[in-house]
């Protein structure tokens, strides 16, 4: 069968399209350049660990002021807005025993334990479902076990919120800025349409500071390397009975509770 004019035009058109797009892609690639000689390095002050983890000694936290101080420390340093609706945003907050440890371990807990408030935050799981489901790697796990987000890359699909078994994630349904009274000028806010959560203060660890909640807790929250037997968290876990949230689902949370 000889080539008809129609077939010729089809092939010519496809070829022109291919050439056009490939050269446009080349041009886009060629634009951005690194400065020769520039390098990237970890800062001198940064704190390192194989697996960061947190131990919350709930016995040392009693009054509402204790919790509010800790929550305020986190939320003010990270510019977490207070939105008074169901579309609220929270990185660290409190709830009662039944809501935090939903596998009802003992029907007859001591009233003191059952009525108490417990701090909740992202568990920085060893095996995080949110990272598994994220379609853009906007949520990812760092080598030191911290699960963080790249707000620049998040497309706002909220699959991670459906995936998180701990309800640790919040979505910016609207612009968060009108709900921020005082903005910490050293830390960014977030924009409308991205998910956010606790970062285990990875930005503070990198300049040699412990997480804000740990600092504000007067020793009730411990933070350290789970892989180091001499770290404060391992010592506390060795000496006390501790529990984690929803252990049966295999996520291996990095937040432990001494009850």
């Amino acid at each position, binding site marked *: 069968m000889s080539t008809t004019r129609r077939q010729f035009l089809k092939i010519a058109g496809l070829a022109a399209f291919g050439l056009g797009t490939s050269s446009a892609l080349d041009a886009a690639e060629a634009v951005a350049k690194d400065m020769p000689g520039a390098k990237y390095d970890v800062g001198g002050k940064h704190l390192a660990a194989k697996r960061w983890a947190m131990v919350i000694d709930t016995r040392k936290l009693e009054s509402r002021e204790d919790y509010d101080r800790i929550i305020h420390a986190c939320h003010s340093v990270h510019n977490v807005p207070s939105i008074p609706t169901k579309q609220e*945003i929270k990185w660290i907050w409190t709830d009662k025993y039944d809501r935090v440890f939903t596998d009802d371990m003992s029907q007859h807990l001591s009233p003191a334990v059952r009525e108490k408030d417990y701090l909740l935050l992202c568990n920085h799981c060893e095996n995080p479902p949110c990272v598994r*489901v994220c379609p853009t790697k906007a949520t990812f796990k760092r080598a030191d076990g911290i699960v963080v987000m790249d707000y620049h890359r998040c*497309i706002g699909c909220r699959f991670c919120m459906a995936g998180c078994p701990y309800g640790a994630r919040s*979505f910016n349904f609207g612009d968060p800025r009108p709900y921020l009274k005082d903005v910490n000028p050293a830390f960014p806010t977030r924009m409308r349409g991205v998910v956010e959560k606790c970062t285990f203060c990875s930005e503070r660890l990198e300049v040699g500071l412990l997480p804000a909640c740990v600092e504000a807790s007067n020793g009730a929250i411990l933070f350290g390397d789970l892989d180091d037997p001499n770290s404060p968290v391992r010592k506390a876990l060795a000496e006390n009975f501790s529990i984690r949230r929803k252990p049966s689902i295999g996520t291996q949370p990095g937040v432990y509770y001494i009850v």
Partner: protein
Amino acid sequence: MIEKVLKGSPAFYIWLLFLGSIAGLGVFAYIFQLQYGLTITGMSRDVSWGLYISQFTYFVGVAASAVMLVLPAYFHHYKKFKKMIILGEFMAISAVLMCMLFIVTDMGQPQRMLNVILHPTPNSIMFYDMMVLMGYLFINALVGWVTLEAERHDVDPPKWIKFFIYLSVVWAFSIHTVTAFLYAGLPGRHYWLTAIMAARFLSSAFASGPAILLLLVMALRRLTGFDPGREAIQTLTKIITYAMAINVFFFLLEVFTAFYSGMPGHQHPLTFLFVGHDGHASWVVGWMWTAAVLAILSLCLLIPPQFRDNERVLPWALGILVIASWIDKGLGLLIGGFTPNPFETVTEYAPTFPEILVTVGVYAIGLMVLSVLWKIALDVKKEAGTF
């Protein structure tokens, strides 16, 4: 063949204009959403997906259901479906387009959509979902167009298209399986964490999708006189009946596992949907009972042959079935998955007016695409004498 769109009756253009104005309202509401964010929807921190994602899920099923015509026609050489098959393929195209629109409307940062391709993440089911949906759109457009073109010229379709036709059968199952995997792989959501999810999705899709198709084809028969053939309708109805029976059976399996095992996590979503949980009886309760009653009623009208083959009863039976499956999958699935929330408490969700407007707008766009594609198909059939 596109030129067929340009020559139509005034009624056809009035219909398009009507759909266009509804779509316009939806676009208007969507612009409002772009301006203020998803805060204008009823979604919340605890119920973070709503009507958009549930409609996406439902219409993936509708798209997949084209296979219920393709499979008998090409695997079993059931000739009676050949006349209608193009309508199923074109319905799949418009359904996939709607799915894509629902995904985009649900995104917080739609302008970053391409990040899914720029940073491909094979561990995310969403990544596969994007690929299978794109692929399904392409396959159906290709197969639909090539076979219709062949019909127009009164020749056999080229041999190579067979490959894509067979591929489309496998692909149809894959799109809905992957969509079910979006839900079924999440460890903390009791209502979704079930191995039967994909099977339930497929059975409900193969009941509701062909039912929608048949209803539309019956409307078409009234409007244009296009007759798919009595036997084709009866066979498709049988397929729908089996699929719906299996769908109801699968749902009852869930009920058995939840309540006989007595595990609270498995029971809570079901009790929330049908009687309320923790003292909260939500507005969904009424809807879910409606769905349950209508599902049984549709089976009662479809299983006895004297009702099923009665073409005055059939549209009612199909309509009832579509409503039941829509409530089950288009409302209950999402709400049951998110309630109770990870703290075992109840956060209510109800779609807001702008949210419904956007959703209806997407329906209108889908229906517009469908109308245009079906018009092309029917005009070609008229010309070729296969009407």
